């Protein structure tokens, strides 16, 4: 076409929306205990007896409903880890840091969280949580887990 511009190659668009996700009783109770008391709560399944940390109101394995709160931890054992070398938007910490799956004392499941990029953070090592001073009722009220000092 004459005078056809060279533009119109790409269109920039986005999906951008804010959300307010209802937590429900169990998730809400867990986050509230983190915020207000600095403790980590698990919930015991009324079906199979497993203690879930962090808890949902339902058992992901047997389908049962939770019947009781259990205070767990604060110590836990690292079941797996992964090292994040580079920063990304929305990262919970400055990279490098590590993701960990931690089985807290008294729990039957493990909890996803983060640790500093510490060589000692490996499978089998014992870690403890450090809580933030100002807590808002979020999983990140636990700043991170750190290896327990011998």
């Amino acid at each position, binding site marked *: *076409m004459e*005078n*056809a*511009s060279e*533009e*119109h*190659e*790409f*269109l*920039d*668009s*986005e*999906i*951008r*929306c*804010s*959300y*307010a*996700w*209802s*937590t429900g*009783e*169990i*998730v*809400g*109770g*867990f*986050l*509230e*205990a983190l*915020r*207000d*008391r600095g403790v980590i*709560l698990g*919930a015991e399944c009324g079906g199979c007896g497993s203690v879930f940390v962090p808890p949902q*109101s339902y058992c992901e394995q047997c389908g049962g*409903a*939770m*019947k*009781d*709160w259990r205070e767990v931890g604060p110590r836990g054992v690292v079941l797996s880890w992964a090292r994040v070398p580079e920063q990304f938007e929305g990262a919970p910490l400055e990279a490098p840091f590590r993701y960990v799956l931690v089985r807290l004392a008294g729990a039957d499941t493990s909890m996803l969280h983060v640790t500093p990029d510490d060589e000692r953070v490996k499978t089998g090592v014992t870690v403890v949580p450090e809580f933030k001073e100002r807590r808002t*009722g*979020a999983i990140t009220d636990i700043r991170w887990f750190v290896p327990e000092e011998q």
Partner: protein
Amino acid sequence: MIEKAKESPGGGPVDEVDGELHISYRQPYGEHYGRFYREMCDNKRIMGVKCSKCGAVLLPPRPYCGFCYEPADQWVELADEGTLKTFTTVYEPCVGEPAVQPYICAFIMLDGAGVHFPHLLGEVDPDDVEVGMRVKAIWAEDRKGTLRDIKYFRPI
């Protein structure tokens, strides 16, 4: 259901968690949208494509016929006027709303087209709009290659 976790003073329940989702996209116009908008922008022309088999003239233009699945390979120029087929006067704010409320959204059958063209009506009181009326495009001076290169259609 199990007992609620012990509440401490001052906290209140954590009954929701807030967050935002943001994903950006960069998508190609491709040949058809590219040419359609260049024609709008550069030549104030509305172009459709014609099906090689059933003869339907399609908007938005695409490389195939939406109805009979044959290639639609012939470009045709459509009039920038046509007949109003349906409209709605919108009073509620909408995301990406095209104008201050109330504004009038319309489907217009452009002369020469086989399907409706979506746009806005202007220079008319909502009470005076009637299905079947003839309307004409009012082109924007500053055109960028979007459907907004037409400001709106107004009654002839």
